[in-house]
Structure formats: structure tokens, C-alpha cells
């Protein structure tokens, strides 16, 4: 018995799991589970919604597609991949979770994640807070001016946007320019002290990507491509992530 329903072992056809196996090299080892439970024993999401990684995989293997693709547990697993790390067979359970997320109608997925992804699609910043490139530039200039004036040791510090040929293309979590702009300064000061040649991009400067968490492949690709194209256009050598 599972959730009050009898398990129909005769069903045996797991369309969902087979679909995910087809996407992965070696089928993600999804049918190699030894049921040892190492995944579940070390998973902080074990027990939430009565689910755990091993149970989720077994249910998928038994063809309980409806349950697997409707449990909200897939939004409580963070896809941190610790289960793969400890698994003797290196089974890609997080990918199964990702595809289960993707199987939800987009409008039924958690509104907060969807909203953050949609915000990032609004303009060319890629920011989950919807911050436009010109607003980002305004904050950067404003904070830089303030820092140069109040801390004269940094009077020649720079925080360039779209500097061609810079070594580092740096991205920044939107929460900094939008809600805590003074948090931009420690990073700039460090880069100044070491003499780093860096730049932000007017496009794709935002570090976060909620479209990936939404399991929206098309939007994830758009956000990544937008940043990558800007870094390439500026001929930066290193795409440097701050987080």
C-alpha cells in the first residue's frame, strides 16, 4: 500500500522513466538501483511529503508515472546531487526530479520560481528581479561615485560595463544592485586591489538563473546564451561567477 492505493505490479510500464533514460548517457544508470538506501539516508529532503530519493526512483521504475509527475516533493528536492555522490551506482536521481518538474504544466509550477524566471525574460539583463540594463548601470555609477568620494584611497577605482578585451566577465546577483547596493563595494575593492581587468556586461550581467530551477529548458538556454554571447562579444577570457 502506498498513499492508500494498492501498487499494481502488473502495470510495469514506466513511460516516464524510459523517457528520461533516453535523454541520458548510459540511461543515467536509472535501472541499476541496488536499493541500498544510501541516497535517502543522507538526503535532507527525506520524509518531506512522505517521499525520499530511493522511493521516488522505485516508484518511477514501477511505472507509477502519475504519482511521480504530480508529487510536490520534486520542488523540495534541491537537486543538490548528494545522492549521486554517495550512490555506488551513480544513479542520476536529480535528473529524474528535473524531468518530473518539467512534466508539470508551466502555469502549475511554483509561482515564485516561475515569476523569477519570467522577470529574467523581460529584458536583456537576465535579472530575476526584472532590473533593466539602464537601471543596473545607474546603480553601478551611483555607488562608484559615492565610494570614490567618501573613500579617497579608491578615487581611481573602476566598475566598467561593456569594457572590450577585459580579462574577466563578471556577473552579479541582482539582489546586490537592487536591494543592498553597498554590497557591491567590497567586491569592487578586492578587484581594484589585485589590479584585475574586469567588466560587467550590459546584457546578461545577472548571475541568477531561476529558469533552470523552473525546469524550463528553452528559457534556461536563452538566459545562458545571452550572457555567453555578451562575454564573447567583449572578448573576455574568463566568465567569472561570483557565486
Amino acid at each position, binding site marked *: 500500500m502506498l498513499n492508500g492505493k494498492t501498487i499494481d505490479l502488473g502495470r510495469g510500464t514506466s513511460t516516464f522513466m524510459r523517457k528520461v533514460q533516453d535523454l541520458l548517457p548510459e540511461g543515467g544508470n536509472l535501472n541499476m538501483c541496488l536499493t541500498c538506501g544510501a541516497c535517502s539516508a543522507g538526503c535532507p529532503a527525506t520524509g518531506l511529503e512522505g517521499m525520499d530519493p530511493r522511493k521516488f526512483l522505485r516508484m518511477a521504475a514501477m511505472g507509477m508515472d502519475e504519482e511521480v509527475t504530480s508529487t510536490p516533493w520534486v520542488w523540495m528536492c534541491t537537486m543538490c546531487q548528494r545522492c549521486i555522490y554517495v550512490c555506488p551506482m551513480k544513479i542520476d536521481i536529480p535528473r529524474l526530479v528535473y524531468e518530473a518538474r518539467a512534466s508539470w504544466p508551466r502555469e502549475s509550477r511554483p509561482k515564485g520560481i516561475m515569476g523569477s524566471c519570467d522577470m529574467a525574460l523581460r529584458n536583456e539583463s537576465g535579472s530575476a528581479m526584472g532590473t533593466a540594463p539602464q537601471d543596473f548601470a545607474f546603480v553601478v555609477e551611483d555607488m562608484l561615485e559615492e565610494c570614490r568620494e567618501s573613500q579617497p584611497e579608491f578615487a581611481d577605482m573602476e566598475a566598467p560595463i561593456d569594457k572590450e578585451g577585459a580579462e574577466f566577465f563578471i556577473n552579479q546577483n541582482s539582489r546586490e544592485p537592487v536591494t543592498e547596493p553597498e554590497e557591491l563595494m567590497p567586491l569592487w575593492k578586492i578587484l581594484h586591489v589585485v589590479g584585475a581587468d574586469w567588466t560587467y556586461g550590459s546584457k546578461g550581467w545577472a548571475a541568477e*538563473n531561476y529558469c533552470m*530551477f523552473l525546469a524550463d529548458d528553452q528559457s534556461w538556454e536563452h538566459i545562458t546564451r545571452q550572457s555567453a554571447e555578451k562575454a564573447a562579444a567583449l572578448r573576455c577570457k574568463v566568465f567569472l561567477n561570483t557565486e
Partner: protein
Amino acid sequence: MTYSVRAGLKKFGIEHRFEVKNIYEYYAKWIREGKLKVNSDWNRELGLKFTVQDPCQIVRKSYGDPIADDLRFVVKSLVGEENFIDMVPNRSNNYCCGGGGGFLQSGFRDQRLAYGRVKDEQIRATGADYCVAACHNCHAQIHELSEHYGGHYGVVHLWTLICLSLGILGPNERTYLGDDLREVNVFHPETAV
């Protein structure tokens, strides 16, 4: 974010010539090269204890133990070897704090806090005054865990500690720190607002 870029470039076959790196590696490099002249003198008498959260997206999912070692080298250089206490387990085997994967935005708050209980217990077992969280989602989640479960440990960004150690952290760039660090090595204290 390191993982979404790395994994995205690969998954979608996006051609590129640049390398994708995380700044922890560079912090370590710049300290080793003497470009970032950090030290832990500010903490010698204070003796504040620190632990560090290994962000899953950067350690386990991207660069593995080498970057976790760089992260520890940086933190120890900043706070003093004797003031660093590791969580168990750690590095690639670390537990996720529950801030990732969109959990913070998903609306499942109770479940997210229940998920984070493991992390809270891990941090408390170290007895640290501060947990270094150099990833925004980890920072937000661990801060909430500290308040929710009553551990009252602080959470600190890596760049805050680096500038504190260098003596270039202004008063307005440390407003989220505890009272124990508010007056330490303040750069241009007259600019406080």
C-alpha cells in the same frame, strides 16, 4: 551562477572560447600570489569562530574538492587556522542547506525549514559564531535557519571578510554583521549613515 552557466553551455551545445570559473579560486590565487595581503590579526584576540558552507552548485556540482580546499585556504587566511571549524560531513560530501534548487522561491516554507534542520544542527555542532556563505541562496537560507531554530550564529559573505581583514570595509558595508564585528577594523568610520 556557476552551475547554470557551466551546465547550460554543455547541455545546449553553446560554443564559447572563454573559461568558466568561480571567484573563490581567484581569491585563493590572489592570496597565494601576495596580491591580496590578508591576515587574521584582527581576530587574534577576538577569537571568533568560523565555519564554512560548501555551496553544492560550486563544489559538488562543478569543481569538486579542489575548490572546497581553496575556499578553506581563503577562510583560514582570513580568520586564523585556529578559529576555523569544519562541519561534518564537508566538501563534496556536504549537505545542501535547502536554499538552492528554487526552494527559497517555491512557497514551501515549512518544508524548507524542515529540510534545513540538518544544516542547522551541523553548524551548531561546530560552535561557530559565524558561518561563511559565499552564495546568496545559502546566505539567505542559513540566516533564516539561525533565526528560526534559535542558533543565533551569524552568516557572512566572503568578500565582507576579505575587506575586513584588509582594513578596507566601510561602516555601511557591514550593516548585516553582529555587534562583535561592527567596530573591528572600520574603514572611514566617519562615512557611517
